[in-house]
């Protein structure tokens, strides 16, 4: 399988995400610069990493969402390619319109950097197939703008369609209905604020995030 990681000016989790992709897929991802207008042929999984793309100018993720490569990512997502956006990557995906809602300043206005407990919302997705619904996992978060907002109808639809992939087990940043990660309607795009790529090896202190990547690889292998 072939993976790619998008790199924007100001991305800082791109290498961690590349390490995670390589650890589970066995091959190095292609690092794709934001100025590219197309992705390499045959990419199965695209990572949109965390960081502070374009210095969070205007709104977190706003400038990155309009960069040339994101049109290629949107086209790939429409064809069914898996897309995983973490932290700033989640903000980029909402700004691109690949996921509904918006990520606003944390309710307490502070940047929050700590481990948080999350409840898995569904196991019915390629991203969460190796977890059980209702299972509690612990991932780190590190963000200033993680306060998920969407109108009531959108929130009801996300919940009704089983598209809330992860929820904060306690109120963390003001997110509507404690949403930490959501899926698109086709189930091939996941955006989440917590960082699974930071908990994949024993040396990280915990390996809760590894199953997310393993589940993805398994799904991709099964469909190949």
């Amino acid at each position, binding site marked *: 399988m072939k993976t790619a990681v998008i790199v924007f000016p100001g991305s800082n989790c791109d290498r961690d995400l590349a390490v995670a992709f390589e650890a589970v897929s066995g091959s190095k991802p292609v690092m794709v610069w934001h100025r590219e207008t197309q992705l390499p042929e045959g990419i199965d999984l695209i990572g949109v990493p965390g960081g502070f793309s374009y210095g969070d100018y*205007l*709104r977190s993720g*706003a400038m990155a969402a*309009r960069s040339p490569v994101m049109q290629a990512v949107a086209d790939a997502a429409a064809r069914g390619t898996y897309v995983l956006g973490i932290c700033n990557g989640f903000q980029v995906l*909402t*700004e691109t319109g690949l996921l*509904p*809602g*918006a990520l*606003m*300043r*944390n*309710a*307490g*206005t502070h940047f929050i950097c700590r481990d948080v407990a999350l409840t898995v919302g569904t196991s019915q997705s390629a991203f969460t197939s190796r977890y059980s619904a209702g299972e509690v996992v612990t991932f780190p978060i590190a963000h200033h703008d993680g*306060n998920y*907002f*969407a109108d009531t109808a959108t929130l009801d639809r996300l919940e009704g369609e089983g598209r809330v992939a992860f929820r904060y087990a306690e109120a963390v940043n*003001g997110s509507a209905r404690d949403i930490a990660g959501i899926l698109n309607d086709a189930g091939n795009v996941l955006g989440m604020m917590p960082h699974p790529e930071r908990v994949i090896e024993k040396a990280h202190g915990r390996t809760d995030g590894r199953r997310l990547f393993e589940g993805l690889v398994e799904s991709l292998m099964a469909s190949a």
Partner: protein
Amino acid sequence: MKARVFVTLKAGVLDPQGKAIQHALEGLGFGGVNDVRAGKLIELDLADGTSNADIEAMCQKLLANTVIENYRIDTVS
């Protein structure tokens, strides 16, 4: 020509920065500040003849996130 775009959070969307400013004002001893909403002012220097529809499109495509924000355009020739 110049245009000023005012971007503000929609009513009902919590504004943590506005709340922090309100608390800071109270801390400075200013009474009677019932609420604060913070927004952005974006000044555009535009070629003469730029249409309102163009500016509108700029707001829709980039300057405002209409999921959470409203915008108002003031043009000054």
